């Protein structure tokens, strides 16, 4: 069974039909980029995958756990699914180290010492070991986003969901975050990225999913999708963004 199984998922915001029967399977170790126009439902799909949003029909199973927005289930899922946001969402009153240690201590019940070692390890991975005792607002946007990645990794998720995590960054800071993702990909981390970085999607991603009007309009191996788009919608989208 695939790591992520999305089966005929429908999602409504009131009367607005946002996801219209999404089918998607993602294997462990895959790097999947979700692309598409604004409003096509990319974020919504991602947020349904860890229970941040409820869906109305169909089913999602991640790491053999049924996804629902039920409070208990969301907490259980947090051990399998990590999430990084466009706006970082670091806790500003805690240091970088405390940001990373909080959930391992409270949820995984690690001791302070174990949690600290874990934080050091994850920070090292994103190249910020020396920032462990700084506060987030002393860091650049790129550094904050790398801390957010380290914080998510500290829960050892099976899959990491990233929603436009470079979109809020100054152009010169995008590269350092993408390099971290690239390294994670090469280590076999399962990544699901909503992204506008088409070069990254093509060169690092295994698969591209093009969403349009709440549906998976086209999907396939990354290079193929970019070189030979079959639908006119994807063709025009690629022409517009590349």
């Amino acid at each position, binding site marked *: 069974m695939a790591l992520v199984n999305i089966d005929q998922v429908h999602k409504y915001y009131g009367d607005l039909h946002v996801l219209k029967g999404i089918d998607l399977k993602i294997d462990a170790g895959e790097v999947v980029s979700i692309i598409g126009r604004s409003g096509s439902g990319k974020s919504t799909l991602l947020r349904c995958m*860890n229970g*941040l949003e409820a869906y109305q029909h169909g089913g999602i199973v991640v790491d053999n756990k049924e996804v629902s927005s039920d*409070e208990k289930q*969301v*907490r*259980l899922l*947090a*051990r399998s*699914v*990590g*999430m990084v*946001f466009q*706006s*970082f*969402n*670091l*806790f*500003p*009153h805690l240091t970088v180290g405390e940001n990373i240690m*909080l*959930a391992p201590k*409270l*949820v995984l019940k690690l001791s302070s010492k174990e949690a600290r070692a874990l934080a050091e390890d994850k920070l090292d991975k994103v190249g910020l070991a020396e920032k462990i005792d700084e*506060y987030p*607002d002393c860091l650049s946007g790129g550094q904050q986003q790398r801390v957010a990645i380290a*914080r*998510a990794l500290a*829960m050892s998720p099976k899959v990491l969901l990233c929603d436009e995590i470079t979109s809020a960054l100054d152009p010169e800071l995008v590269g350092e975050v993408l390099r971290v993702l690239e390294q994670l990909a090469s280590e076999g981390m399962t990544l699901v990225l909503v992204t506008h970085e088409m070069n990254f999607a093509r060169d690092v991603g295994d698969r591209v999913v093009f969403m349009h009007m709440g549906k998976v309009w086209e999907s396939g191996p990354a290079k193929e999708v970019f070189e030979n788009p079959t639908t006119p919608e994807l063709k025009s989208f690629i022409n517009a963004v590349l």
Partner: protein
Amino acid sequence: MIEFTNWDILRNLLLAARWTIALSLTAFIGGTIVGLLLTAMRLSGRRPLQWLVRGYVELFQGTPLLMQLFLVFFGLSLLGFDISAWAAAAFALTFFTSAFLTEIWRGCIDTLPRGQWEASRCLGLNFKQTLSRVILPQAVRVALAPTVGFSVQVVKGTALASIIGFVELTKAGTMLNNATFEPFKIFAMVALIYFALCYPLSLASQRLEKKFNGSR
């Protein structure tokens, strides 16, 4: 008629001011505790609890404090409870304070970005952990200044307890005036004592506001 020296007057007023302080502290501490409970109920996500809190806040914000005081004092005696002026004043002011603090804190918590809740949820923190480790530590910084600022309203609100016969600063002033017929002198002294109580509080509030504004 008894002769009162200025010192006698001042001394009696200061003695009575102790009760003003005691009543203020009681109301403020009681109001904080009740306010925290109401705030937790409001954030719990349970609809009936949220309505209850909404109703409570609207009720106490939408009626004069004096009426609340009368209702507690006379209402409870009508129901057969023998309630002292002190207890009635303490209860009424606690309700009043808790309603306003709940509303002040609602504003402070709502200014925190939704992403703070979402990030906590994605990390597997439960509601209590999110509240105590992520939301409240940030909200407290924002809430400190307006909360201390509101304590000035509590101190001034205690003056109404004089109307149901509780002898605090204002009531003592009224009684001394009945004995000396020097209203200007006496009420000037009363006002000065209130000012001496309130001014440090509003000063502290302003300082706190400067200190925490915009910083983490």
